[in-house]
């Protein structure tokens, strides 16, 4: 059942892949703008790299939420799946699909962005790239999880556009802070285990709560 839900999400996404590509494209573009906009010097870039990459990840997740949830609500397939599969399961499948389509690609392209932003400047044999990937790997699912709750609430409110962002952004801040500081710590040769542990803990909390809360909200939205 979960498999069917997930497969449908992926299939729909493949059909209108603009929706999927745009966030990713956006992510890369935002990041690659900074060398133009701010400064092309390696040390400066390196300094702002973690923050920029993380903010871009956050915005990309946010940007894709609307697209990802709205259409099911409008064409009535949301209520059908809720009936057949139950709210928590529907929410979980959506969240997982959303992460596979926006979070995972980000994790995958992040080494490229690291190079673009000179993340290894002045280091030999550094593992900054791995740290960046790991932090994104732990952080982006949390973004999707929290985003699902916000989006489901916004759907229930039958409201368009930016309400989701307003609901969700304050909740994103801790993830952003810890995600960034993981990478920054690595760049400064400090230990980053603590930050990673916190990211993991946040992920766990969200993992326990979000599918349930999002499911409830989805149920409210179709009633």
């Amino acid at each position, binding site marked *: 059942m979960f498999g069917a*839900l997930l497969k*449908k999400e992926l299939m729909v996404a493949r059909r209108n892949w603009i929706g999927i590509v745009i966030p990713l494209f956006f992510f890369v573009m935002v990041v690659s703008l900074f060398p133009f906009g701010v400064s092309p010097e390696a040390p400066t870039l390196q300094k702002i790299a973690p923050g920029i990459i993380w903010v871009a990840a956050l915005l990309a997740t946010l940007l894709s939420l609307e697209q990802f949830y709205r259409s099911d609500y409008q064409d*009535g397939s949301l209520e059908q799946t809720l009936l*057949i599969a139950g709210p928590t399961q529907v929410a979980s499948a959506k969240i997982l699909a959303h992460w596979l389509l926006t979070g995972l690609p980000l994790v995958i392209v992040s080494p490229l962005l690291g190079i673009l932003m000179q993340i290894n400047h002045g280091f030999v044999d550094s593992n900054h790239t791995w740290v960046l990937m790991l932090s994104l790997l732990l952080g982006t699912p949390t973004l999707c999880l929290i985003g699902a709750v916000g989006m489901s609430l916004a759907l229930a409110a039958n409201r368009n556009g930016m309400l989701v962002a307003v609901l969700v952004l304050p909740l994103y801040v801790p993830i952003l802070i810890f995600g960034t500081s993981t990478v920054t710590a690595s760049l400064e040769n400090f230990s980053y285990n603590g930050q990673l542990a916190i990211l993991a803990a946040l992920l766990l909390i969200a993992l326990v709560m979000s599918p349930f809360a999002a499911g409830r909200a989805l149920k409210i939205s179709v009633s």
Partner: protein
Amino acid sequence: MTNKGLLASDLTISRAEHVLLEGAELELAPSTITYLYGENGAGKTSLMRCLSGLLQADSGKINWNGQSITSLDSEYFQDLIFLAHALSMKAELTIFENLSFYARLRGIKDPKSLIDDATSQLGIAQLQKRRFAELSAGQQHKVALCRLVIEPAKIWILDEPFVNLDKATRHWLAALIQDFAKQGGVVLFTSHHEIEELAIDQRIGIEH
């Protein structure tokens, strides 16, 4: 144990602060076809959504086979097909993809032959690879009806299933419903037109 059907008692339903139905009682026994009628805005859809567990009634009980539908959650919903005004198909997917999604949700592993059968009954087999958005209104409706053939169920709640269909398809649907009831199914449907082809066992009107 035989199925005891759907029983609603003392149902009060309201929308946006205004009470639609008060103290409604109804019984949908197995092997009966129930026709729900009422003018536009009477509350047919709201009642059906309530019976499907989508809308929360203000008060009252709804039992399926003797147990409250809120308590036995998934079991009732496995038995139910609810066709709403919205057709619940993804515009981007093909007919085949849409139908096999619902079939898989019901746990059918390999739905191909079932889908072939359903679509050819409705004369849309050659359109299986067409995207849902690229069908005519009636063809889209037919796709939704295929679900009745494909998915196993014990109760059908159908909100205006005859809309947009041409005469031949209406005949076909009436026969399908009759058949389902004969095999012990529970059927509740609405329509603003009389469906002469259908032998109706119970009529429920929403009236003042």
